[in-house]
């Protein structure tokens, strides 16, 4: 069964990027600290978390902003590199230049992205990348699981991972907890909302 997974690294104070995000520093100043658990010095457990996620993902969904900031790094292959996992970019229009032979498909709405990604993913999962698109999908009730890699640092400013979620609390089920050396990997299932009478 395909699951829609919002998977993000986040600081202890809830930021997914530090302040000062710009094309040269897509994570903001010092924001790369959020990803050291995954790159370079990944401990065994963290490496396993990462490998499992990569293995299970059959399609990705990303917002236009994240796409624009990241495409110079991603190139034609997208965030999964040589695995060339299809990526659906929610965007009002198609950018003028797209890498030749790229894995990217441009769609108009988060709902369309989920529908198309589902078809592309087969029985694998869908990885949602980027805070805004993740928030939109959570609000629309389209996210099945939230995976948080909690990194013990305070940024004090930046882009908040969870924002604009509406007024209703979103209940999560008890997480599975994996203790990385630096990051704590928490996988939550989003509780199905009970219908209101």
């Amino acid at each position, binding site marked *: 069964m395909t699951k829609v997974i919002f998977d993000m690294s986040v600081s202890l104070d809830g930021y997914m990027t530090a302040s000062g995000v710009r094309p040269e520093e897509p994570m903001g100043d010092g924001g790369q600290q959020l990803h050291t658990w995954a790159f370079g010095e990944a401990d065994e457990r963290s490496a396993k978390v990462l490998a499992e996620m990569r293995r299970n993902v059959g399609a990705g969904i990303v917002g236009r902003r994240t796409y624009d900031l990241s495409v110079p790094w991603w190139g034609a292959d997208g965030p999964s590199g040589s695995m060339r996992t299809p990526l659906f970019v929610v965007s009002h229009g198609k950018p003028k230049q797209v890498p030749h032979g790229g894995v990217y498909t441009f769609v108009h709405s988060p709902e369309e992205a989920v529908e198309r990604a589902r078809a592309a993913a087969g029985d694998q999962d869908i990885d949602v990348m980027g805070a805004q698109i993740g928030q939109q999908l959570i609000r629309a009730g389209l996210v099945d699981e939230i995976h948080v890699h909690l990194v013990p640092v305070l940024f004090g400013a930046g882009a908040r991972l*969870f924002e604009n979620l509406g007024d209703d*609390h979103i209940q999560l089920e008890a*997480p599975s907890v994996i203790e990385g050396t630096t990051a704590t990997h928490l996988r939550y299932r989003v509780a199905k909302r009970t219908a209101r009478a």
Partner: protein
Amino acid sequence: MTESSITVGGAMSMSLDGFIAGVDDSPKAPLGKGGERLFEWYFNGDTPSRHYGPPFRLSAVSAELFDARADRCGAVISGRRTYDVSNAWGGKGPLEGVPLFVLTHRVPRRVPRGDIPYTFVTNGIERAVEQARAAAARSKKIVMVMGGKAIQHCLRAGLMDEIEIDLVPVLLGRGVPLFHELGGVRFERTLIVDAPGVTHLRYHILNKGGRRGSPRAKKQRKESADRATDRLRRSVPNGEESK
């Protein structure tokens, strides 16, 4: 054991999106709208607390951690709001037998009688920590800071050594954040306990004060606190009235 080696810690229940209370929090509704969700783990089991008694009914795992936390505590620092909201704990203090230091701009007119020494510290967090450390050193235990604002003050002043977060699986969406505009602080996780309805995390602070804890800023704060010490009374004994 020297007083400066006494650990200063804090503990808070926090939603996954970083809130310690819901929106529209007030002295009458200190948890804000829906904030009680953050404390369900106090009541989601059948194990009573050795320290706090009813109505606490925790899971066995959380009860052990909760009581161990209290066992470690040799002095409590509380913010004034927490003190008021708790009705001064009826004079009994937040934890039996543990001296209380209340951060406040004004010493309250009436303080309920009780066995626990209450000290009102009006000249800043540094002095509160200093006094609480001295008190905790007598029992060779740690200082616990209660309340979001007091914890923020402590972190900002570079006085916090560790923080415990009881991470609750809910997204409140809006509310009162635990951490506020404080950057550059790094932690090391020293404890993790996966309990029903809550994940208990303990972090040791690696660089106290973060970016704002420059030596110069610290010196200025200390000088201004020292001046205040001369002007203001340090404390009133419990049970007395003061103007």
